[in-house]
C-alpha cells in the first residue's frame, strides 16, 4: 500500500502530504521547520502550520521540503 501511495503522490504532484505507518511519520511539502523536539515538532506549510505531538521523535531523513521521523505520534493539528 505504501508503494501505491508513494507512486500516487508522485504522479498527482501534491503540494503536500503526510504519511503515517507503524512508528514513522513522513511529511512532504513543508517550507520551514519551526520546532523539532523529542515530543513536539512544528512545520510551516504553504497554507497552514502543522503541529505534531508525541514521544521520542527522531529524525531519520531530512531534505529541504520533506522529513522522515520515527516516534510515537499522539496528536496532530493545524495551527
Amino acid at each position, binding site marked *: 500500500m505504501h508503494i501505491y501511495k508513494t507512486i500516487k503522490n508522485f504522479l498527482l504532484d501534491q503540494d503536500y502530504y503526510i504519511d503515517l505507518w507503524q512508528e514513522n511519520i513522513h511529511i512532504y511539502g513543508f517550507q520551514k521547520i519551526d520546532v*523539532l523536539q523529542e515530543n513536539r515538532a512544528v512545520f510551516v506549510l504553504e497554507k497552514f502550520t502543522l503541529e505534531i505531538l508525541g514521544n521520542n521523535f527522531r*529524525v531519520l*531523513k531530512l531534505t*529541504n521540503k520533506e522529513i522522515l521521523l520515527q516516534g510515537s505520534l499522539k496528536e496532530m493539528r493545524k495551527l
Partner: protein
Amino acid sequence: MTDSYIWVEVKTTNNERFFLKCQEIQVFLYDVVEEKDRLKIKILEKDFKKLQKIWFIKVKKVQDLGWKALKEKGKKYHIYLISLAIGLVFLYVISHIILSVEVIHSNQDIRFIVSNALNEKGIKKNTWKKDYQEIEKIKQEILDMYPEDLEWLEIETKGMKYIVRVEERKLEEEKNEPQACNVVASKDGIVKEMVYSSGEAVYKRNDSVKKGDILISGTIKKDEETRKTVCATGSVYAEVWYEVSVSIPLTYETHEKTGKVRWNIKAKNNGFNDFLFKSRLENYEEDATSLFTLFGTEFFFVKQYETTVKELIMNESTALDKALKEVDEKISLTLDEKEEIIAKKVLKKEINNSTMNVEVFVSVLEQIGERQEFVAEE
C-alpha cells in the same frame, strides 16, 4: 559525474538546533543514525564543508561511498591491484606463448622437412599461439607442400608447447624378389630344425654343417635333372658354439640406509640437475616426485636417504654364479625369441688381483640360414 555520498559523524549537544541549522543551510540528510553521544549521517560530499562551518558541532568524515570510495580503496590497495594486473598479464602471456615445438616421428628426414615447413609458416618457439582456424590452414598448406612425403599431420597445443604428430606417406615399393637363391649356413653347427616355404632341403636334423654350405637349395631337381629354379625361403636352426670370457671383481660395495632423511627441491633441465638447498649428506639415495614443469625445467620434490658404503668380498661360488649369469646376458642379447642357450661349461677359472677370470663354452640354438642369390643355368 554524480556527487558521491559520505558518512560523517557529528557531535552536538543539541540535536534539534543542528537539524534546524541543516534545514537553514540546505544540507540534506539522507540517513540519520542516532548513537549514544553522536549522530552518524549520510550526506553529499559537497555538503561536508558546509557542516564544518557550523560552530556548535564537531564533524568528521568516517566513510566514503560510491565512486570516491572506490578511488580511495584503489589508492589504499594499489600494490595488490598492480600485482593482480601484472599477474593477469603474466597469465595471459604464458597461456598464449609457445616455448617449444616438438615434431614426433621416427624418421629424421621427415622431422626435418616438417620442422622447416612449420618454421616457415610461423609455428616456432617464442611466438604467440595461433588460433584453431590458422593452425588448420597451416596443416593443409604443409600437407599440400609435401604430398609425396606426408600422409597426415596433427598439431596439438599442450600448455606452452606444440606437439606435431606426422604420418609418413609410404608408396608401395616394387618387390624385387630375386629369381634364384639358396639358403646357406652363416656358421658351423649341427642342424636341429628346418622350416622352409620354397626350395629343397639339403641337410637333415643332426647333420653337421659348415659355414657356406647350402642348407635349402633353390634348384629343384628330379632324377638328377634341374627342373626349376626358385628363391629358397626358410629358417634353419642349428646348434652353434661360442667361447665367452668374463671377468668378475671379487670385491663389491653395498649401500645401507642410516635412517637419516633430508628434503630438497630439484630442478632438471636438459639432463642437468640443480638442487635448491645444499645437500649435507655425503652418500645418499634419492626418491624424487615430479611436481611441475615450467619453461622446460622439471621440478621435483626429493627425499634424500643417507647411506653408508661398505666394501665386501664375494666368495668364489657366488662370483662364478655371477659370471655365468653375465655370460647368459651377453649371449641373450644377440638371440631372438626362438633362439636359446642349450648348455654351458666352464673351461677355465682363475683368480688374479681380486678378479675372477672365467672362460665358458656355450652351446646355442641359433638360426644360421641366410639367403644367397645365384645365377640360374639356362
